[in-house]
């Protein structure tokens, strides 16, 4: 099962690489990873998507907790949560397909954020699975030149902050 894990990490030299290295040395997969500061300047929040059975996710959490810089590990998947991922897709569009595609983008609440020399950049922000569906539809309709995805970000709803 896919798990979205949030890690609060102390900002120290090499802290991020130690997290990444734990995944590679123990053979766990990182599907996506995003890192940014939090309200505490000493702490960053990593949002990481990985795949694994419950026992694997439990080991990942326990191994993360052995890293000195790790403050907290949250498996957001276990909680009622919201998830968002920003995706940008650069396409080249033939004129005859234009109207149909733009209608679809509009319907999906996507946007065109750039159009230069026939190259269009679409933006969409939704959950990971919906973004995948959107991307598939665009790929079917036209030539995709480049994709940039932020990887999902997630927060638990309400008061809940449950650590593993």
């Amino acid at each position, binding site marked *: 099962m896919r798990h979205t894990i949030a890690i609060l990490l102390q900002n120290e030299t090499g802290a991020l690489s130690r997290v990444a290295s734990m995944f590679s040395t123990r053979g766990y997969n990182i599907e996506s990873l995003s890192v940014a500061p939090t309200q505490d300047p000493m702490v960053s929040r990593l949002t990481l998507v990985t795949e694994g059975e419950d026992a694997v996710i439990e080991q990942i959490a326990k*191994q993360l*907790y052995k890293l000195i810089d790790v403050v907290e590990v949250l498996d957001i998947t276990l909680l009622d949560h919201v998830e968002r991922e920003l995706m940008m897709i650069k396409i080249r569009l033939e004129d005859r397909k234009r109207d149909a595609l733009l209608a679809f983008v509009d319907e999906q609440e996507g946007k065109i954020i750039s159009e230069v020399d026939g190259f269009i950049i679409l933006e969409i922000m939704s959950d990971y699975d919906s973004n995948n569906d959107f991307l598939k539809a665009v790929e079917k309709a036209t030539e995709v030149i480049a994709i940039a995805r932020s990887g999902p970000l997630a927060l638990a709803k309400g008061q809940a902050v449950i650590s593993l």
Partner: protein
Amino acid sequence: MVYSIVVGCVTLKETVKTDKMATPTKIEGSAMIVRVLAEQGVKIIFGYSGGAILPTYDAVFRYNSENQINGKDPMPLIVPANEQGAGFMAAGYARATGKPGVVLVTSGPGATNTVTPVRDAMADSIPLVVICGQVARDSIGTDAFQEAPITSVMGSVAKHVFLVTESEKLEATVRAAFEIAASGRPGPVVVDVPKDIQNSMVIPDQDSRLNIAAYRGRLSQIQGRELNDAECKKFFNYLGQSERPLLYVGGGVIAGEASESLRGFAEKFQIPIATTLMGIGAIGTQSVLSLKMLGMHGTAYANYAVEDCDFVIAVGARFDDRVAALPKKFAPKAKAVAHFDIDPSEIGKVKNVDWFHIGILNKAIAKLSDYSDQNNLAFNFSSWLDETQELKIKHALSYDRESNLIQPQMVLEEINKLTKGKAIVSTGVGQHQMWAAQYFDFNQPRQWLTSGSMGTMGFGLPAAIGAQFAKPESMVIDVDGDGSIRMNLGELETVTAYDLPVKILLLNNAGDGMVKQWQKLYYGARFSGSDKTLRQKDFVMCAKSDGFQYAEQLTEKKDVVKTIKQFIEFPKAAFLEVVIDPDAMVYPMVGPGMAYDQMVTGEFISSRDTDQEIDEIDPNAMF
């Protein structure tokens, strides 16, 4: 600063310094490092100098000359032939004492040469503090002379690594390194110190602490955990339902300084003990309750006891592949498994257990003992204990006693007769290591120093040197193989340079014996890369060239007893090469990826299995 020691874990008690009024005198960063080492009670440093660590080497020199005790250095600096040697010396010191071993090396190659001992210490949970020089901050990342990315390299192998980027944090960082290395599940911590920070002027503040609040919080939570009555009750329910309980004891008991309470617990309830390679010494090997080592090359009787037992009590052990290659088939008759550990990640990592406790072992054992007293619990495992005593007699270790060639086991038995379980023994890795684990007696923990998890050849000689510094009054013997000793042969000179009475026993079978054993069993006796018969090295001459006054070669079986006696009784460093039967095998053997019921005991140990065929092995299981 006040330390309270809780079973090998250092818990910080913050003390408030009142004298804040005095004008702070700045000192050099390098002197600051040495000051923290002294504050932490460091009695010895192992290391090799070089450009980026020169300021700190100078500070050590000045500290030693200014603080002489009876004309001696308070913090002697022991210089190996290679930084790997320094790492293993510090590890030998740490294994023999439980205190962090300290390594001081330069940047680049100095630091990378310690990667193997750091990983080795991590894998065996040994506390080390490795301080390495780094190029100056403004040179980092420029591919400067002797620059290496130590935070990245060590980050994957150490318990933690610090790169000191601000002078103000140097003192607290070195202090934190000791705290992290020794606390919880011990391990190596690396502190990478740029040269300009060593040269900078800093204000000492002995109250300075690094913010590692998250680590401290988790640690104190684990250390604070108490077994409650319900948990005790459940544990004793399992024990009450059991007729054949077995304690499976690992290195955690030694790291947790819990041997004594474990022995008390085992004796109170009369439960036999099998130890892992790392757990050797947790119980005296000659104790009635001791079944010696279990696992791939464990005693047949320990492994049969694992097959027969109905309740496994794992204590500071982690079901690793040399013990439980097939976790589901490990202790197949066990109706329940209990697991004590200080590391939450070990619970359920390999084998699911029915009962576990994460916390301080001494406390947990004391609580169980109290609970049983208060509830007048009594158990009778005497018939099981009798069974295990029969197993010990019937399936005792043995070897080809009639052979004309010197058998390695005979040599070890003869030494054991003289040392009587009191010697500190270090080893390399391979056949000689397993024979030593099988045939030596150990009365106490911290006498058996071996590279267990990493299996690092070359560990034995430097580890023996470190241990001899730690225990100058003890007999320290390095049992080595010809393959292993070659890896750090340069350290022979270190033994004599510091006039250490280390005994080096080289069991020479002209090759990498364990590799040859596997090639014999599983690769059609094709000795790819493992035969050393063409090597012309004269080991005795090597030892002599490094100043060993006793350096002998033993080739005749009839001379074994006499020569061993001379060797062991020689008052100074002694080197004995024994030319052993090159075909001697290590038995029993549970093949890689196999269950204990497939154990092969060889020609000389009686098996209760009539089928002694070597089973076909899944090549993927062969590591």
